[in-house]
């Protein structure tokens, strides 16, 4: 059975939250809570609470990136210095640690930032094509709830949405 998408736009954020809560509680057949996507013009940590616990993994990228950046920098710099031996700096060892730490520090940050961004793109699934059910109102002032469910569940969705004063409900065009 094919799944259909439905996007509802809400003006009132509290109503949107209530709608989500109701969806969660309604236990509609052919609908998984994880298939619901919230689209909003601003960040809504309080709405996300309603969505349930969804972990973020960007930090792991950060940790790995920063460590790799630092280590790579130190070893690259140190080995470059080591084979740069014929050009000694008077009064200084071939591999001087204090300056190398400065570079390690900088590259630690650079690696961290780069890989964090990479992690963000991966975790947030960007860049991506916009789904066909998208309203520019979402980037303005309305909150959108995109649900995916069986054909059968659509009616239930609509009921809930209308109940919570959805301004507009978009339906995926039929095949």
């Amino acid at each position, binding site marked *: 059975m094919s799944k259909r998408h439905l996007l509802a736009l809400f003006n009132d954020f509290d109503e949107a939250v209530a709608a989500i809560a109701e969806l969660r509680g309604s236990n509609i057949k052919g609908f998984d809570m994880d298939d619901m996507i919230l689209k909003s013009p601003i960040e809504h940590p309080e709405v996300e609470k309603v969505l349930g616990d969804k972990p973020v993994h960007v930090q792991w990228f950060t940790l790995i990136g920063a460590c790799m950046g630092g280590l790579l920098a130190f070893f690259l710099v140190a080995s470059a210095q*080591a*084979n*740069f*031996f*014929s*050009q*000694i*700096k*008077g*009064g*200084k*060892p*071939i591999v001087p640690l204090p300056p190398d730490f400065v570079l390690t520090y900088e590259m630690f940050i650079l690696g961290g930032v780069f890989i964090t961004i990479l992690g963000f793109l991966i975790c947030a699934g960007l860049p991506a094509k916009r789904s066909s059910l998208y309203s520019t109102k979402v980037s303005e002032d309305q909150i959108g709830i995109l649900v995916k469910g069986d054909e059968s569940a659509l009616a239930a969705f609509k009921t809930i949405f209308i109940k919570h004063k959805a301004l507009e409900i978009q339906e995926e065009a039929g095949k």
Partner: protein
Amino acid sequence: MSITNLLENWSDFRQQHPSDDRPHREYKWAMSIDLDSCTGCNACSVACYAENNLPVVGKEKFAHGHSHHWIRIERYWDNDGREFADQGAQFLPMLCQHCESAPCETVCPVGATNHTADGLNSQVYNRCVGSRYCNANCPYKVRYFNWYNYPTIDNVWPEPMNQQLNPDVTVRSKGVMEKCTFCVQRLTVAKSDARTKGRSVLDGEVQTACQQVCPTGAISFGNLVDPEAKVGKQWMKQQVDLNKDKQAKDAAEEAVKLRGYRILEELRTYPSVMYLEQLRESAI
């Protein structure tokens, strides 16, 4: 250079100067200048122009501080308000001190100035990008920057004056730093000749241009590692230790008989040029 060679001979490459426990192996070029003999006649400076292709920059550029005299004669007076400079002047030939712990070397972003195995402070013109940090960090200000492209400037080396240029020495283009090299082109020839003969360079076999010309022989130059070298004996006699920043002379009251000193030693640059103090007769 391969990594394997590097790893095998790691301890050799880990030269760290100045240090007592890791002396220079074959050569350590050093100089001593007797200020009591120096008369300030400028012959050394002209010799350096001739040997090292230094550009004559002309009045206007000299006025702007663009002069290129790798060895310059400084002239000091007793500034104590006396009516006449009745003890004469103090002349000081100032050239690159070839510091063992050279402040210029550590700051060059591209590694264009380095400490060579025979104890020179080298300047690699091809590598220099002209950040001029080395000069900024040189307490003696003996580094000279090519502010203009002298070979193409009128009246620096007009035809046929360019034929005088020493083919052994690069003519530097604009944007690179340069300085006294201890006449490294002569050292290189001497070392290679000596190697052909299976020995190291003997004292007196190689002279810097300034030393060679000095009418009073105020400049001695040689290999500090060589126990026969005059310059080494002078350093020894004056109890000036290359690897120390405080010498016997500074420490002990009774050691005032020594007149060897190094300039701005307190900055821990460990210069390779020792000066011998000027003397003045007290009976007159």
